[in-house]
């Protein structure tokens, strides 16, 4: 009776391992398929779908049979006064949201970080995070109620002897309302990333600063802020790329016919004119224009930041 030699057994073992391995590969690929399909269909197909910006897209003919028109929609865009108004509104909203919205969570995080009583700190955190979890429909409804002509804010102004203003239908206040409610909803949530960075600061640095005679303000200025710098740069870079992406859910809630001239931004315009109005090709061109600016901003500032501060996101 011939026993299989050791080498034979090894060979057989190899085969088994190989078979198992190829089966594992197959299973792993099967695992990836649904997710991959998702990315191809819902992320890549719409990117390809951008070609309708160069067509006169007809919903009955589809992408394949709609006539090509080159850059006609883009040139049409630049001849529209409306387009420039939307562009300026988007830039204004994006710029001021960033100007006030970016430092707000940093200041709040620095304040929270100074609290020494744990229970007080936790309570404050729970309360300031909360608005993040309310939908824009809810936040919008609440503030429209508060800021309307007879709302509690105007009652207060009246009590102070000031005149009433309907903040939600007044051109001059539209931007402030958007920025204010945006900060109200997200400032607390925005502190999380900074508080995480703050908790990572080496306590020795503070001790050293104290030995050198630094008080609380000087410690904040010379220890805390420099340690937050990298986090701040990353957050800033990420938000600059989205400067033209107004929050549709927010703006649509506050938008009303009385403030349309100052309130219409790219995303609401694409929704109103494109989706509701059926001008698919024209608004896709606008979306493409907006996305291009956003991407250029991110890459440009990323390169700039890498040169100047050594921090970058790519």
């Amino acid at each position, binding site marked *: 009776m011939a026993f299989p030699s050791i080498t034979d057994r090894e060979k057989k073992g190899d085969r088994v391992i190989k078979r198992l*391995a190829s089966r594992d590969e197959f299973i792993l690929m099967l695992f990836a398929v649904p997710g*991959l399909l998702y990315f191809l269909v819902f992320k890549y197909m719409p990117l390809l779908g951008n070609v309708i910006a160069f067509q006169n897209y007809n919903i009955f003919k589809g992408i394949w049979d709609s006539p090509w028109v080159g850059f006609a929609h883009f040139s049409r865009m630049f001849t529209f006064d409306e387009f420039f108004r939307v562009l300026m509104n988007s830039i204004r909203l994006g710029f001021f949201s960033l100007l006030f919205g970016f430092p707000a969570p940093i200041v709040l995080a620095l304040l929270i970080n*100074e*609290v020494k009583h744990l229970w007080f700190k936790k309570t404050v955190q729970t309360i300031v995070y909360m608005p993040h979890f309310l939908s824009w429909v809810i936040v919008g409804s609440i503030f429209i109620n508060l800021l309307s002509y007879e709302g509690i804010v105007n009652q207060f102004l009246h009590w102070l002897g000031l005149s009433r203003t309907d903040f939600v239908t007044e051109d001059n206040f539209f931007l402030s309302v958007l920025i204010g409610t945006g900060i109200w909803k997200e400032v607390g949530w925005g502190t999380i990333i900074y508080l995480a960075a703050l908790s990572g600061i080496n306590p020795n640095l503070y001790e050293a600063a104290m030995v050198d005679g630094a008080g609380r303000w000087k410690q904040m200025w010379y220890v805390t802020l420099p340690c937050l710098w990298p986090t701040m740069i990353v957050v800033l870079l990420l938000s600059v790329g989205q400067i033209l992406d107004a929050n549709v859910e927010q703006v649509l809630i506050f938008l009303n016919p009385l403030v349309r001239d100052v309130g219409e931004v790219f995303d609401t315009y694409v929704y109103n004119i494109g989706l509701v109005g059926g001008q698919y090709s024209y608004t896709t061109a606008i979306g493409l224009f907006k996305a291009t600016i956003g991407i250029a901003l991110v890459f440009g500032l990323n390169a700039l930041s890498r040169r100047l501060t050594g921090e970058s996101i790519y």
Partner: protein
Amino acid sequence: MTKRVSVFDVGLATVLLFLCGLMLAPLIHIISISLSDPLFAQAKLVYFWPKGLQFGVYQKIFAMDEMWRAMGVSIVVTVGGTLITLVLTSMLSYSLTRGRMPYRKLVMKLILITFVFPAPIIPSFLLVKSIGMLDTLWALMIPAATSAFGVIIMKTFFQGVSNELLDAAKIDGCTEAGIFTRIVLPLSKSVLATIGLFQAVYHWNAYFPALMFIRSKELYPLQVLLQNLVVKKGVNNFMGDVQFELSMPVTPEMMSAGIIVFATIPILLVYPFLQKYFVKGAMLGSLKE
């Protein structure tokens, strides 16, 4: 440092208490209006405490079939959408953490590219339309199913599961599918919970997708119904065509306030208990690859 309370501490506490007040006051005001006697509400005398406590508004809201149907839709989309997200994201992320997966790096790059180039609105809409999802709840659950962000977070977590453990399972004859379902998933409850919670909050609060994709009133989620009733002042019309058995009259403002509170309460109730998971999730999201 001494334990004595300094001027700085008092100032700090005052500022923070004021900020907390700013966060809570709008909610308290709305709740108070909804619970007050219509006479006081009409006269705008309600501030931060209900006057002439009554629950008529809520009796009316509870009697609205529309409201319950919309809530049902929201629950279906939230639960269904979150499950789809967890299944897709975890399976894809797991395959990307295993060295044996072919084209692993290429796939990861393809996913990361979608970070920089987000899907545009109109082409996404036309896509959903062309695959026949328009005006179905699938349109709310599928297009938002996963993201580069979610995959990165889960992949990072899965990579933290000890390799020795997986190898041991392999030696004991476990297949990749077995390792995934019996070892990796049970060890990853916390990341599944965080991603699931984020997605659930997203679905519960989203109204723009429904605005784009849903036409039939029966399929309106809660947020869209809210928008129609409160922001577009549909409450006034609604008050006209529903007959109330209650003798107590209710003003449209109170009705709006009540509807706002009704839709907010579920999240306010669960939020404090889930807060730590959310914070953990936000921190995971800030990880740099």
